[in-house]
């Protein structure tokens, strides 16, 4: 497992250590620049593919990933299921309010290290037993952060820098078990924590609409995806709808991810299911409860995963299993007819 804390020693970094955690990704901005220069597509070409091909071509065992959305809201479920189906191993994860997304990858035994801001829980829905066990047993190596810290680590990377000074985490055990370092502002002497830039190997984001080139628009809250899309070395986009390029050009102010950040585009209708997708469908709370319940018994869980992930060919197969269009239509009503 890579630990880039060593890199700082090589470079004679003089900041006082603030935390004893590991840095799982290389924060070096110059190496990131070279990668972006040499590997990022400048040419506006069609990038449409299938989920299975995208996972095969862009996610390797050992990669570190960042997932868009917020736990069970606008998450790229199809890609996560496919990673489980293809048996991806030793994946590092940025656990920036990771809830159902974390649960899926833990169920597939994909993760071996995690930058934690929030994992294990599913907010008001309760705690995932398998996720909890995976950390308690030491199966997953962890470094502590906070939601803002991970957001700002993406932002540092998105800005092409190697760190960001922040004012959270100071004085706590969260700081102690992070990999942040204390520093002083050269202008005012104010004490800050320097958090290392986070350049994930792969970013995976579900959006409302994209054209075939990867120009993407998101409706509603962005969470941290604007910065994640820019920080990621490779970026896989799933989209509720593929739209013609002229639809993007009609409202360019809505474009948050331009094509040159994107490596693969796949249309996946209802792609955030069982998560919420703003203005499209609400979360399937009954299904999320079934997940948590299945985790109480290893046999139940195996059967549950067989039925919903391993035993189906693709994401449409999963949607058939959970009740198909009838169930999805109910969730669409729940989302859009809050007021009649």
């Amino acid at each position, binding site marked *: 497992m890579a630990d880039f804390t060593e890199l700082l020693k090589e470079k004679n970094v003089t900041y006082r250590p603030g935390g004893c955690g590991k840095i799982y990704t290389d924060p070096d901005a110059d190496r990131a620049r070279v990668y972006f220069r040499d590997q990022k597509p400048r040419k506006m070409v069609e990038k449409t593919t299938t989920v299975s091909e995208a996972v095969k071509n862009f996610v390797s065992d050992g990669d570190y990933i960042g997932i868009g959305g917020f736990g069970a809201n606008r998450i790229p479920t199809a890609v996560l299921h496919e990673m489980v189906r293809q048996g991806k191993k030793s994946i590092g994860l940025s656990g920036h309010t990771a809830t159902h997304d974390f649960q899926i990858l833990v169920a597939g035994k994909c993760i071996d290290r995690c930058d934690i801001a929030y994992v294990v829980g599913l*907010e008001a829905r309760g705690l995932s037993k398998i996720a*909890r066990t995976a*950390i308690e047993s030491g199966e997953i190596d962890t470094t502590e952060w906070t939601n803002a810290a991970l*957001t700002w680590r993406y932002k540092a990377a998105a800005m092409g820098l190697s760190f960001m000074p922040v*004012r959270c985490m100071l004085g*706590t055990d*969260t700081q102690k078990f992070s990999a942040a370092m204390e520093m002083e502002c050269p202008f005012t002497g104010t004490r800050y924590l320097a958090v290392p830039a986070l350049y994930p190997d792969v970013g995976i984001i579900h959006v409302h609409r994209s054209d075939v080139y990867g120009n993407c628009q998101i409706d509603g809250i*962005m969470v*941290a995806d604007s910065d994640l899309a820019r920080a990621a070395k490779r970026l896989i986009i799933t989209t509720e709808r593929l739209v013609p390029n002229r639809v993007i050009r009609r409202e360019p102010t809505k474009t948050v991810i331009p094509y040159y950040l994107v490596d693969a585009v796949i249309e996946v209708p209802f792609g955030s299911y069982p998560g919420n997708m*703003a203005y499209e469908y609400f979360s399937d709370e009954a299904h999320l409860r079934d997940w948590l319940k299945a985790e109480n018994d290893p046999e139940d869980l195996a059967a549950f995963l067989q039925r919903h992930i391993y035993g189906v060919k693709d994401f449409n197969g999963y949607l058939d299993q959970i009740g198909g269009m009838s169930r999805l239509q109910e969730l669409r009503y729940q989302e859009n007819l809050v007021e009649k």
Partner: protein
Amino acid sequence: MEYNDMELMICLASRYLEDDSIVVVGTGAPCAAAMLAQKLYSPRLMIMFEAGGIGPLLPSMPISVGDSRTFYRALAASSMPEIMETCQRGLVDYTFLGGAQIDQYGNINSTMIGEDYTAPRVRLPGSGGANDLGSLCWKTMMITPQDQRRFTEKIDFVTTPGYLTGPGAREKAGLPPGSGPYKVITNLCVIGFDDQSKRMKVESMHPGITKEKIIESTGFELLWSESVTVSDAPKEDELNILRNEVDPYRYIIGRG
């Protein structure tokens, strides 16, 4: 009118949220308190959610701080950095936090139970945005049940800073001066923080609750205000709005 503990805590919390101020809330009781305040006391209270929702007209209780209800008919659907940076700039007056353990300085643990970080007895979700909000908002409030296990002398992990080790400790650590814990609202009493020692100080006891009950439900020594009062019980209009408009399906108050 009869009421349960949850209803009591939500009503008391709602009275602290001043009009024309900004509060960042999570789901559950804090969200209910902010909604109640907005409907009854502070119509221009600005509610924000850490995933990006700004000023929604909440149609019902959100399930997640990032679900679409948190920006339903909102003023803005922004982003997590936008909300966190607004806190860091000093524009957010209030926030509400919870946790598994809390000490006399208002430090909160929501990360793990056990002695050793690498082998926790129980792993909890972690900071999420709690540390950020507790570090960067001006006044931090807590709504929590009170018992010996939760109100403990030494918490296993300081996830979110209260006053850390006492007077001056937040500033020394580099946290923004003037920020910190404000009120702790429990099922037994309302607790503030002593100006000098930064330790928890009981301000009012709820109707029917004795000093002894509070002492035996706390794992550390509490300070007592010179004029401990009896908390004002929930009023009829508070309970009516809470039950009929804020939480008609009893998602939160049903837990009381």
